[in-house]
């Protein structure tokens, strides 16, 4: 097996297949960079250096060029994250509606600051900009689910739902 094949072998055949399917719709292989990163992240929670190099090989670009794209987006995780990622909106509507108290409640109940992961690897807490749901401010998002009109009292119950 060539070195290139070995590197790509870091990826599962399902991942490779899904990425190839994206490439098929695009003018060139590099254009599938974002999709490829998302596919791998969806599968593994984050994009490790090894995965990144493997994806770059598969797309025929340098790892540096792919990492340049990956690091531009704050939702492509280049470090391991917890099983669930909590994103707390701190933009203007949520701010006006008192999101800071909610954030504090979350931080206290998890014992971590923004950017950190709980010791048991259950949650990672990240701040985020407007989630486009200002009518329900303050808003938080956990994994793919949006929670609107969050009050401090709601926090324990919401967190409980993510084992």
């Amino acid at each position, binding site marked *: 097996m060539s070195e290139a094949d070995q590197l790509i072998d870091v990826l599962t055949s399902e991942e490779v297949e899904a990425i190839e399917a994206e490439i098929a719709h695009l003018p060139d292989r590099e254009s599938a960079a974002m999709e490829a990163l998302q596919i791998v992240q969806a599968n593994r929670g984050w994009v490790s250096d090894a995965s990144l190099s493997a994806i770059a090989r598969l797309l025929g670009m*340098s*790892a*540096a060029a792919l990492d340049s794209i990956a*690091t531009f987006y704050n939702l492509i995780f280049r470090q391991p994250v917890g099983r669930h990622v909590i994103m707390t909106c701190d933009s203007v509507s949520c701010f006006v509606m008192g999101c800071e108290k909610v954030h504090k409640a979350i931080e206290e109940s998890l014992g971590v600051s923004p950017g950190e992961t709980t010791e048991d690897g259950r949650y990672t807490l990240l701040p985020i900009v407007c989630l486009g749901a200002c009518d329900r401010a303050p808003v938080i998002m956990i994994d793919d689910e949006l929670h609107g009109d969050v009050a401090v009292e709601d926090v324990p119950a919401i967190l409980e739902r993510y084992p």
Partner: protein
Amino acid sequence: MAKISVDGVEFDAKEGENLLQAVLSAQLELPYFCWHPSLGSVGACRQCAVIQYADEEDTQGRLIMACMTPVADGMRVSLEAAHARDFRASVIEWLMENHPHDCPVCEEGGECHLQDMTVMSGHTARRYRGNKRTFENQYLGPFLNHEMNRCITCYRCVRYYQDYAGGTDLQAFGSRARMYFGREEAGVLENPFSGNLVEVCPTGVFTDKPFSKTYTRKWDLQSAPSVCAGCAVGCNTIPSERYGRLKRVHNRYNGSVNGYFLCDRGRYGFGYVNDDARIHKVGVRAADGVFDVISAEEGEEKLGDIVRDGAIGIGSPRASLESNLALKVLVGEENFCTGLSSAEDALMRLILDVYECGGARIPTLAQVEEADAVLILGEDVLNTAPRVALAVRQSVRNESLEMAEQAGIPLWQEAGVRSHGRESASPLLVASLLPTELDELATHTCNGAPESLAAAGFAIAHRLNSAYAAGEELDGPTQSFVDDAAAVLSRAKRPLVISGTSLRNDGLIKAAANIAWALKAQGCDAGLLLTAAEANSCGVGMLGGGVDLDTALRAAAAGQALVVLENDVTRRADPDLVASAFSGSTAVAVLDSLENATTESASLVLPAATFAESTGTFVNYEGRAQRFFEVFAATGETAPAWRWLSKAGARAGRNDMHWQHVDQVVEAVASHPRLVGVADAAPNGGHRNAAGNRVPRAPHRYSGRTAMNAGVNIHEPKTQVDEETPLSYSMEGAMGDQPAALTSYVWSPGWNSNQSVFKFQQEVGGAMAGGDPGVRMLDAEPAQVDFAQRYRPLQTPIGAEGDGRFKLLPTHSIFGSEELSGRSQPIAERGPQAFIVLGAAEAARLQVAEGMGVRCPELDATFAVRVEESLAEGLAVVAMGLGGLGDEVPSERVTLEPDPEFVPPTTLIARG
């Protein structure tokens, strides 16, 4: 021309040009960061903001970015309006928020575009009191330091490195205030033009690493206009000195040659000037075989004795025309040899013959960039004439520039041009012995032995015009390359054919000429670029010699005295022949700057000055004579070789070479009919500016002149007087109105960085004021010759003899193949281990694989194996200048055997 009003004053400007460029060309001051004349505009930094008014009534105006705004007739703008000034001051304040303010310890300090722009924008007091973001820096190899905290996120580095130079390992990472410009992980920056980052980055993020080991501020450097000695391109440089050491080499703008950029061989290949192996004294070999030091006078006397009754003189393609001429006069034309190997000498004569036919234009590098189809026949330009490869890289953009023009996108609109023409490229056809780095840009490639490439070339000319004879039958893939090449080239308006001497094959040069001439006959503006190996190969070729090197060595072997000028002949001729010349000759006098295998065998050694300590002329591949000036005076006995030779001539009773002054030698050179232009390559020593001043080598802030040697002698030294050139050895004199050939450094009030070069150009990014330096001497009107019949293909049998031996072919490495730069530490560190390339079948037969070792008993050398599928049986390719090899491969076929002892050296990288 458009008329624009800037702060109420009318200026002429080029319609459609960007406003920033127009404003700077009008010699007004406007700060900028992200724009660069060779990289275009992207509007990233917001520093060039000005106010534009709709009409005379409009007093409010609106803020625009000058670099992103095309000039239009009647345009009304203000640079001085309070809004514009405040905005620019705020921009720089934001940019500086995270900057560490560490100018005192920063090597950019004193020549920093960021410092200049900060002062110009009026940001004088820092208000930000918060924490600054800090980064970890990376090890980037022997050429560059990395200090990311100083970054202002202008994106110039990645735009230069990726878009212009084609590198992929420098990237922009992250977003917002955390942008990081570096590699994915620490490691050597691979692109061979990486050193330009030193000058492209407007701050101290990328600085010159060898320079930092013995750092000096720009204002304390003594500099002179010079010409790179690294290859035949002849890039213009500014080398700088302090304390008798050559400290660094910077680019010297020449709009026709190197523009803003050098290659890394040129920038980092000067270390030999400061080397411990420099020869400083005159040495004569005593009976016991050791050298005795003798005085300069005794040395002159001895050299005079050696030449009195006639001697053979071997010149050098790395020595100045002046020194070569002095030797030629001393020994007489019939005893003088150019110092090129016999094979290369024949090719140089051929090139001159081609050029003298005047059948096609010899392109400048700027014209290479403008070619709309390029065919490279055999020459691996990235490794033999590196800056040509960077120019070829720009040529493939012409297709997208044309598309942009049709779509109405201004050509300086970098992002627009690039995204609009994303998929399109002008044709680049590469026919080479081995795959080359330029192949990634090539639309068509073909690999083969030099004879097959030449045959392909002849066939292309034949396809273009059947009056040109076709060569041998071609195989399928080569034939289709030929068909494509003929079709592509005949569609082009400015096609260019590139070849050269490096494969030592005359068929390639003849075929290249035929193609260019056939194209020219079709009515297009065809160019023909034929490159040689060294800085003055073309110069010595034009000077010419009566004998070739092998003949010269044979005469020495038969007992003639021998004078060798700056030439390690062991690199250029058969070792047995060289040995018999050294032992048979009555006396071997060698003038050189560094100890080498030839000085080892000499009976008399005289210390010759390098390019940095002498004034002289090199002739580049286009026949351009360019003068380099002494940067600092040679110490001790060291002197320019021409001076030794002229003194020896006088001792030998010659009265035709009493040269005291380099101008007298220049005149003697210019009396040669082919070399008349040399006299005008730069003003002579009598030149003074309008006010009667010399051009200073040192900036006006040059400090410590009277004290800097106090550690050795507390007496204030007398300022050295320059008897030979129009430059002064001090800050006395005046910069500004000097001819471009005398620009010893670039500086202008408020512009301490190299960006100040626009103050010396006719227009930003154009020719230097008064014309680009150098005189072209090979432009010729079409001669009365039958072009189609002049060079006919030879039937040369190709292929293995079947006795298991190998014909060796040469390849080159930008780092390590050239003699002197290869002896400079940072270049040697980047050079590859000696290697040999074998075809897959031959590797299998020898039972070796990539990375294993192979020995060649005839050469007494060991190589690391590289396998190249396509290489034909019976051939092996070795890298010149590496692992004890010189510049020539043996003409006899050699044996190769696996070397079981071979251990690939562990890559030890000295960090720091």
